[in-house]
């Protein structure tokens, strides 16, 4: 009975902490994004509220919380109210399977540093992450507005197209690791950065990165909410906290996808030098710090991409998704399976995929160059 109580308490504490961090990542990432975008555009970014503008997103959150919640007359009430919840819930649910540190032992109890250490956590991630799209499509449809509907439909088409590439790119890692558990995948990459999957699966990494950008509706692929075309897309008719839900879900998904990418390809909480994790809480902090650094790297990469690349046209998006990335994902899966069957060394596999990546680069670059020349 005592052990059960303690176990429950630990789980509750972990849930509270993880949800707080996931929700808290939203204002943090928004602030960092606005700051970094500002710097890249040779301006200082928010710097008025609080020291160095640190409280800007807090104040924005308070403002949006107290705004009037306008519901237009022409919406479909049930789905309209349901959509923001359907968008934000998957993001929070996904956060429960992210392993952010090694197991630690406190008072004789082994505590894994994730809310739950599912055996199928990667599958769980894909299953729940793809539910987000229901909220987006329902939001677009229930708004009863042409542009919102277009935004929702674009989102549906885009997420369906890129979901396949995303999953297939991850299957390469699954073949290497032989497990669905994110915790086990992380531990298999321990012992130095040369064990990280990014060096075994460079092609899979690039595919996963691009597909994740598209899944999160980040800038080169942010067609569902293209401001200049759709005046905001599926969340045009939303205001106040309902709008904030969409916004928060977007940034939470960014944070969580960055986490999964760190786990799959950069060894999660494993440091880049050989290190055997002990079981003290200090070792847990050690792991969490490395995990944070890797997630931060991906978040910065996302912001950097946003500052650099322009938005694709819709046909270009579909061209890239179906004609370039999907075949490559299949090739990656097939090749990895063959390499594993023949027992290749990791560096041989990495080298082959790197060569394939460079060849793809050349071929795609050539196709684009020819297309551009044909237009002139």
């Amino acid at each position: 009975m005592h052990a059960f109580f303690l176990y429950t308490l630990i789980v509750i504490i972990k849930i509270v902490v993880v949800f707080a961090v996931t929700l808290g990542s939203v204002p943090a990432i928004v602030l960092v994004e606005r700051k970094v975008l500002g710097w890249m555009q040779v301006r200082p970014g928010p710097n008025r509220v609080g020291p160095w503008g640190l409280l800007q997103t807090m104040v924005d959150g308070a403002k949006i919380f107290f705004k009037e919640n306008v519901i237009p007359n022409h919406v479909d009430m049930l789905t309209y109210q349901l959509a923001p919840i359907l968008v934000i819930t998957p993001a929070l649910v996904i956060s429960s399977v992210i392993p952010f540190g090694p197991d630690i032992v406190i008072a004789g109890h082994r505590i894994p540093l994730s809310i739950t250490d599912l055996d199928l956590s990667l599958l769980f991630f894909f299953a729940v992450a793809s539910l987000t799209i229901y909220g987006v499509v329902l939001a677009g449809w229930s708004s009863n507005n042409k542009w919102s509907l277009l935004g929702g439909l674009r989102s549906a088409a885009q997420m369906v197209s890129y979901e396949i590439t995303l999953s297939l790119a991850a299957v390469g890692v699954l073949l290497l690791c032989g497990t669905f558990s994110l915790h086990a995948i992380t531990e298999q990459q321990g012992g130095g950065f040369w064990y990280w999957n990014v060096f075994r699966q460079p092609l899979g990494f690039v595919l996963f990165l691009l597909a994740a950008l598209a899944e999160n509706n980040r800038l080169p692929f942010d067609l569902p909410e293209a401001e200049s075309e759709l005046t905001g897309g599926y969340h045009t008719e939303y205001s106040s906290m309902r709008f904030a839900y969409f916004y928060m879900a977007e940034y939470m998904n960014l944070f969580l996808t960055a986490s999964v990418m760190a786990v799959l390809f950069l060894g999660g909480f494993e440091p880049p030098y050989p290190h055997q994790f002990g079981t003290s809480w200090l070792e847990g902090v050690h792991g969490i710090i490395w995990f944070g650094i890797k997630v931060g790297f991906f978040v910065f990469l996302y912001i950097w991409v946003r500052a650099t690349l322009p938005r694709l046209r819709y046909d270009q998006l579909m061209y890239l998704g179906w004609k370039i990335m999907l075949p490559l994902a299949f090739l990656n899966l097939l090749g990895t399976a063959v390499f594993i069957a023949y027992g290749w060394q990791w560096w041989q596999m990495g080298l082959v995929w790197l060569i394939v990546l460079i060849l793809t680069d050349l071929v795609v670059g050539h196709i684009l160059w020819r297309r551009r020349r044909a237009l002139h």
Partner: protein
Amino acid sequence: MLSIDLLKGFAVTLKHMFRRRVTVQYPEQRRIETASFRGRHRLQRYADGRERCVACALCASVCPSEAIYLEAAENDSEHPTSHGERYAAVYQIHLLRCIFCGFCEEACPEDAIVMGPQYELAQDARAQCVIDKTIMLTPREEGFGTYDFDFPPPQVG
């Protein structure tokens, strides 16, 4: 190669991240106005205190947004307001209509109306945006104002 082109773009944004910011932190810092800055209009005086404006109304006729209204009056021969025969009894500029093009300044044969350095022109009411001589005329204490093109006043015969 596609990736090299992409990396070039990424390098550009990364370089800009460490550039010096160009933003002026407005209420605390201010941009230094150049002599050619076109802010709110001023009506100049000669060093002896007389107004330059002789109410020829060229400014009002050249104004593309018809923001200038003026009424002329004869000078009192004992105590002339301007150096010419007439002076502007009423001189109003509607700042909400003004587009700060500076044509009035160019048209003025007496260099009486100039575009000054003031640019903080927000007001509480529309009526306050119609400014007249009490606001535009350079105060007597300032002599002929800050603009350095004073000629000796012509003698009124």
